[in-house]
């Protein structure tokens, strides 16, 4: 039982990381109907900034805050400077533009820091605590806690503030929102900035475990994408639930099913996602889309 709890908690901790990036993907998707592959690249770039700061002696928490701010600015600049150009046109072109950004950001990170993995200091002390007879790492609990705080903060932002209302309006119908005087372009920039900031948080939280490198988030991005799609792509709650689900069953399968082992672990969430999508094509929480002729 205690082993089970450990596995589940670790799975939830992984899931929290996927959830943060999945939320970022959903945020941008709701506002612009684009899948943003550059999410991973922006998160890595912000994490590298934090890395450079910690190497210069800055405490991890401050480095995290700096990374969040940097991420926000980066996201806003990218939207205004690059994505704005593609947002009205062919969606495939826009998605490939995000791929180009992913490559550029990865290449830039590699240029400054190389491709080899480096150690990254953890935000949480390297201790384990006892919960119901199981030993869970403080890092796992801390990661989950941070994500919950972020989720609550986002919820407050979107449901109770004017800015959040405006962002939801723009995500729903940008042309109509403009007619009510909403500054659509500025809100899109803020949306991207927020998404990138979420990625920065995820990056800094996961870097101690994965060792920071330009390719650090490649797999996380894939899981985040799967979570976002499984959750229904327009539902933030769905993305988080799906991410938790994926994190947990991946770990459970790896731990309890011998033939799966560490390398095929990644297949399990995907098989599960496929099965669920076949049964429920709109995802766990998505809306059924009716296409009007």
């Amino acid at each position, binding site marked *: 039982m205690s082993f089970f709890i450990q596995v589940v908690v670790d799975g939830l901790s992984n899931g929290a990381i996927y959830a943060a990036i999945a939320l970022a993907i959903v945020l941008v998707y709701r506002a612009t109907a684009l899948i943003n592959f550059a999410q991973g690249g922006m998160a890595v770039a912000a994490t590298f900034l934090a890395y450079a700061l910690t190497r210069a002696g800055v405490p991890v928490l401050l480095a995290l805050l700096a990374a969040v701010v940097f991420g926000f600015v980066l996201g806003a600049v990218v939207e205004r400077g690059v994505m704005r150009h593609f947002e009205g046109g062919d969606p495939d072109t826009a998605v490939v533009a995000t791929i180009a950004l992913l490559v550029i950001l990865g290449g830039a990170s590699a240029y400054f820091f190389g491709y080899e993995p480096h150690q990254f200091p953890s935000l949480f002390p390297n201790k384990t605590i006892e919960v119901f007879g199981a030993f869970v790492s403080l890092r796992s609990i801390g990661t989950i806690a941070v994500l919950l705080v972020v989720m609550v903060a986002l919820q407050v932002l979107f449901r109770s503030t004017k800015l959040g209302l*405006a962002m939801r309006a723009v995500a729903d119908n940008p042309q109509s*929102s*403009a*007619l009510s*005087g909403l500054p659509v372009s500025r809100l899109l920039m803020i949306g991207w900035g927020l998404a990138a900031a979420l990625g920065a948080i995820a990056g800094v939280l996961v870097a101690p475990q994965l060792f920071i490198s330009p390719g650090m988030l490649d797999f996380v991005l894939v899981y985040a994408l799967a979570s976002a799609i499984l959750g229904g792509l327009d539902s933030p709650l769905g993305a988080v639930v799906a991410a938790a689900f994926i994190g947990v069953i991946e770990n459970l399968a790896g731990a309890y099913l011998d033939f799966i082992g560490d390398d095929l672990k990644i297949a399990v969430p995907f098989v599960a996602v496929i099965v669920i999508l076949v049964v429920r094509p709109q995802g766990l929480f998505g809306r059924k889309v009716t296409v009007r002729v």
Partner: protein
Amino acid sequence: MSLLELVDVTASYGHAQVLHGISFSLPENGATGLLGANGAGKTTTLRAISGTVRTTGRILFEGRDISGLGPDRTAHLGIAHVPEGRGTLGQLSVRENLLVGAYQRRDRKQVATDVDYVLDLFPNLQERVRSNAAALSGGEQQMLAVGRAFMAKPRVMLLDEASLGLAPSTARRVYEAVVRLRREAQVSMVVVEQNANLAFSVVDDATVLETGRVALSGSKDELMGMDAVRRAYLGG
């Protein structure tokens, strides 16, 4: 000085020119109609005013040329456009839709009062104030769109085909509310309609468009008196 004046306005979608020199004016506190058949350019004229289509010519609002300003700028100046298709923000609740309409205002107390006023104007909306707007019927969404435009406390309201897709009784109810709005809140209006009867319940005069040009204009009585108008737009 008229509140709103269009002088020789053309408009194009890409290479397709849709308006070929429209001129009309709206006096202070007035209400004017834009009539015409499908494809005549009525919606495009409203879009020209609110700034969502490329134009040439002059569009004067309170004497100032606003052609070339985008929709959020014209909204800021006091022009509220209720678009064709209503532009309902489906994922937001009825109340939230109204609050979005008041986005540019800073007077929170008055905003709350105005929300109550709109809900009183449209009792249907009061019943469903917390529902997602996408769940509303066509008529209710139209009411919501009008209410949302009003929430901006605009100087001019541009109403685009408010009767579209609505049952006649529903359309009449919408227009009754619009009349009440005009009377109680003194909002000037430009009303685009294919159904001239409904339009004339609100407006004092109208301009008739035909393939992007002004074909006729005049007061309500003049136009209603013309056989051609009656046959084409009033059904006999």
